């Protein structure tokens, strides 16, 4: 980092700038990173950020780092990384372009840095303008006595006649009867299902899930449920064919619902 140009650079700086640089060193804690510091340094050039001399800025920054090192102020790594990058940028800007090097030119890099500084500056101004706006709770106010919307929740309970009958059957089978169970195997034949469904049809006045027509005790065991579902479904198709019931399904894999075909 020993810069042969250092004296020259020092000479380039006015007394004012040197004082500013020293003041900066004391305040190093006050900067939010290298970009923030660069933005502050660029202000000492007292020109529009569009016209800023990036070469000059790089020199200012390198001096800052140099001084900080002299004063044994420990700089965070990102300040040193930026210093190295700026030294690289400076050499690019000072040396004639090397035709064998296909990397970005010094001018491109300088333009990007200028863009970053402008963008940061713009965002700071935007933030200041935003905070200067009228703010809720400070400049304008909301309703002091809001009337919250009262939500009246009306719950209606529904039960069908079939639910009622099944409920009663469930209760009654506890003593006198027990649910129909195929003791041998977990298989319900379609004929059995058909028999069952035929008996139930007169009560199927409303659309109801086919699953609710499975025989008692067949819904819990997966094997039995599968068999009962298949048989009941086949039986319902048969009954539909015979014109005794109607079947509907709203979509693929949706519930299959049946109801008695009403002649009324």
């Amino acid at each position, binding site marked *: 980092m020993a810069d042969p140009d250092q004296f020259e650079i020092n000479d380039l700086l006015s007394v004012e700038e040197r004082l500013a640089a020293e003041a900066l060193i004391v305040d190093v804690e006050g900067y939010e990173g290298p970009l923030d510091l660069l933005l502050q340094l660029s202000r000492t050039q007292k020109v529009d950020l569009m016209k800023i001399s990036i070469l000059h800025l790089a020199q200012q920054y390198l001096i800052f780092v140099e001084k900080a090192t002299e004063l044994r102020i420990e700089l965070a790594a990102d300040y040193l990384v930026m210093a190295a990058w700026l030294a690289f940028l400076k050499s690019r800007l000072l040396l004639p372009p090397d035709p064998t090097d296909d990397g970005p030119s010094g001018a491109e890099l300088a333009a990007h840095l200028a863009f970053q500084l402008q963008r940061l500056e713009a965002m700071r101004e935007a933030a200041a303008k935003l905070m200067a706006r009228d703010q809720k709770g400070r400049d304008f*106010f*909301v*309703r*002091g*006595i809001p*009337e919250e*919307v*009262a*939500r*009246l*929740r*009306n*719950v*209606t*309970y*529904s*039960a*069908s*006649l079939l*639910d*009622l*009958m*099944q*409920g*009663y*059957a*469930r*209760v*009654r*089978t*506890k003593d006198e*009867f*027990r*649910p*129909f169970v195929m*003791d*041998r195997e977990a298989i319900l*034949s*379609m*004929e*059995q299902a058909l*028999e*069952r*469904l035929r*008996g*139930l049809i*007169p*009560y199927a*006045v409303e659309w109801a899930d086919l699953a609710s027509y499975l*025989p*008692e005790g067949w819904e819990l065991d997966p094997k039995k449920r599968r068999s009962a579902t298949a048989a009941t479904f086949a039986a319902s198709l048969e009954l539909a064919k015979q014109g005794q019931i109607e079947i509907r399904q709203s979509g693929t894999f949706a519930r299959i619902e049946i109801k008695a075909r009403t002649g009324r």
Partner: protein
Amino acid sequence: MSEPVSDAASDDTDLDAPAEASLFEAPPLAEQERMVEAVLFASANPVSVAEMSGRMPHGCNAKAALEMLQKRYEGRGVRVVKIGEAWAIRTAPDLGFLMQKETVETRKLSRAAIETLAIVAYHQPCTRAEIEEIRGVSVSKGTIDQLLELEWIRFGRRRMTPGRPVTYVVTPSFLDHFGLESARDLPGVRELRAAGLLESRPMPGLDDEDSEDQDDLFEDES
């Protein structure tokens, strides 16, 4: 305390003394009206005239401004009302319906409730003890209350037995909901069995026959 302090007195004196007499000229009344409007809107509590005056610039006539504002809001969606000695903005009473939102939710009746209802329907009049005996489990008060609230069951006559327990019967709105003419229209036990809702336990000896039957049926079917 008998001597009114100038601040409190301002309410009285503003009316007769012209505003020009004040060192700081009071804002025009229209502006004062804007002020009371904003304060009434934003304040979390009704605002008294004294408090309002205290918040407005010197020389303002809060009372006059409030009365002007009240006139302005006549017939609008909100009104400026006086509550005791304080003022507030309130929704016009005829628009109260906008402040509530009704949602209707349909829920399936619980299994306990359905069973209890079914037992009442089939066995009415029926005491709680009887329901519990038939169900084999105790019936929670909540279940009974829910059915009472739905107006599907109601209290019947007390049973003339020790303790004179209340009985439950189903209501006309129960019959209405389930599309029944009377509770006698409920399918009987025999019909339930015929419908396959009640299946008697197959006799152990008949197992073989049953399975033969079934085989026959399968053959028939194919």
